[in-house]
């Protein structure tokens, strides 16, 4: 058997795998919202601790 049968079969098989991955992705709703995730990824994981925090609370009492 020539190697070309094997190569083409493998390539088609890989393509089918990607295709199934696509179907699964659509089914899970990944493509329903195409905007929010693009913003979400830019947020920092850890929020900065505001050094002025204590000051502001002192001011608050004065108000």
């Amino acid at each position, binding site marked *: 058997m*020539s190697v*070309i*049968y094997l190569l*083409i079969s493998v390539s*088609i098989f890989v*393509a089918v795998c990607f*295709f199934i991955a*696509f*179907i699964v992705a*659509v*089914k899970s*709703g990944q*493509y*329903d*919202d*195409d*905007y*929010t995730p693009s*913003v*979400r990824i*830019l*947020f*920092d994981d850890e*929020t*900065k*601790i*505001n050094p*002025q*925090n204590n*000051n*502001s*609370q002192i*001011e*608050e009492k004065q*108000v």
Partner: protein
Amino acid sequence: MTGLSCFHCGLTIAKNEEIDFDEKKFCCAGCKTVYEIFSSNDLTSYYEFEKSPGATPQDIAGKYDFLENDSILSKLLEFHEGNTAIVSLNIPHIHCSSCIWILENLNRLQTGISTSQVNFHEKKVRITYNSDIVSLKEIVYLLSSIGYEPYISLENYGESKTKIDRSLTYKLGVAFFCFGNIMLLSFPEYFEMKEFWLDSYKPFFRFLIFVLALPSFLYSASGYYVSAYHSIKTKMLNIDIPIALGIIVMFIRSTYDMLMDHGPGFFDSLASLVFFMLLGKMFQTKTYSFLSFERDFKSYFPIAVTKINKDNSEENAAIYDISKGDRLLIRNQELIPVDGILISESAEIDYSFVTGEAVPITKKSGDKVFAGGKQIGRVIEMEVLHSVSQSYLTQLWSNEIFQKKVKQKHKTITDAISRYFTPILLLIAFAGFGYWILIDANTAFNVFTAVLIVACPCALALTAPFTFGNILRILGKKKFYLKNAVVIEQLAKVNTIVFDKTGTITTNKKSNITYEGKSISDGDILVIKNVLRASNHPLSRMLYDFLPETKRIKIEDFQEITGKGILAIVDQKEVKIGSGQFVDDIKSDNFEIEKTALHIKIDGVYIGKYVFQNQYRDGLEELFRTLSKDYNIKVLSGDNDGERVNLETILPKGTELIFNQKPEQKLEYIKKLQEQGQNVMMVGDGLNDAGALAQSDVGISISENVNVFSPACDAILDANEFSRLNYFLRLSHKAIFIIKMSFGLSLLYNVVGLAFAVTGNLLPLVAAIIMPLSTITIVSFVTLMSNYFSNSNLK
């Protein structure tokens, strides 16, 4: 004006009212409080993504008490088991990345919330929380306190989760997969190299191509077969017949060619055709997920209302459980959900959702109050006359126009063309077959199938979707949101335009205020402005904004009497502002045509009155003048004809003005016009126009805030863009013109292709070139043309 803007919400800070806090400036205590909440929870990053992203929190005391009621709660929750609950809340204020950030960090503000996820386009946040630790009511109060008040309406009640139809995405995915792979495998065939090793693998390649073409043929294209079948059954020849015919013939012929070893067949063309056509379909369905075109009264009405039991205890009851004879409690800013009789002494009811009229109507004890009004001011009590579905306004929805789902009211331009296209195509195919059968039976078969293949109106079918899809996007950018592409075609056919008056051609944002009476001194204006400052009545607010900026002075005594006016003491002088009767015992001679006015009396001396007149939208006169050249224009109004004289001077001569129209009468009026053969476009805004909007060929709803209110309609127009209505209509005409031009172009391709076909020279390679080429030229042609026309000055 100082020009300072609030650090939190971005609004201009009124002079003398700015609040300094933490070196930042705020316009009101509400904004300051939100900042405090964020800064004490280390969430000030909120202000880093976007400048001044916030909204001023509103007072909501008591408004969401119904969330304590378990049966109502269960209808709102998406999921509830054990102590885990999930709720999806609609938040109209979501507008920037800061909003996403703060809403997805809710768990830092409230223990018990595990995750929250925002869907920006739908303006929704999905919150998962522990119902043992925190209640939905607490979450709603938290959201409101940071300026993100959710919008909960009767629509959410028992809302079943709608299944999203993703079949088009699947079909497109399958078609693209098949198309790409077939193209790769067809490459050796295109070059027709007589190489030994390529030749020996031919059967294998062809077999793979055949297998790959099957899903595209059987699944992706299935919509066309169904549509063609329906169109034959209803004897309406649409464009899908030649498409389905072309695809099927292409498949049979290719399979035959392959089995007989005549050649590679047209599988590549078949796959590309199906892919491009599905792509066009996808492009055409531009949806605005934050808008809803199917709204009825349910999206305006609250879920629950406070009921007063016999023993004077209060209870939250679902709207649908309210029956005749119940007593209800309506708070400030709450909507009256059913018709009833007022028990409290007096009430001020704002019917702006219903009629578009901004000035509230005063009702006295014993008066009938209609559903849809909003109470302004004190808490009132009322007795129910009709249940919610039988109320005056909601009855409109029992009209048959809301019941039947009109599938397609008219033939599309593509279908109109294909009525001629299909018979001519079949004629050519049979003529070719008849000619060649005398010469050679084999060629005759080839010619017959080649004609059907090459004439498959791919480009023709793509023209409309791509033009409309592009125009739809252009209009969306210009704040004119259409429900779907068919609306563009309907817009181009309109010959009569009916306008609602209040709220549509008038704006309720500002009023035209004129002063009548004795000359007024600066000192008096100073006093009036300061007295008005404390009042929340819409008329007071409007007059307050109208009067020039003044100093602040101290008000010694202030009293607001519902339905009458304000009584205040400034500098030991008594100031009375309000209705004529209240201020100076003026009895109006004709109650009906009394103008809306605020009378002023200072220290026992009657000074004069400020008269409020409808403010027509900017550019109205100009718009009506240009529109009247091409269209019949009519104005329908639910009000009395007090404005008739004023309107006649503004509008072009011959404009029909009809007053005193009830919602059903508006609907009937449109129906009557349609029976006379007119294509009617209705432009309205309030719920009372809902019937007319549904009945008309194109119903456009004008909205001051597109995120919140608009009755069911075909299109939503941002109120600020009202004066461009003519431009939008022109553009729709241009869209039809572009389509006609590109029909000509694609027919040209068909003629070229047919020339190959009837002479028996259609090689698979020729077909593989002609089809994508025609598609690409058509798509780029219509895109360029529609962009050109949208930028050109359409007068």
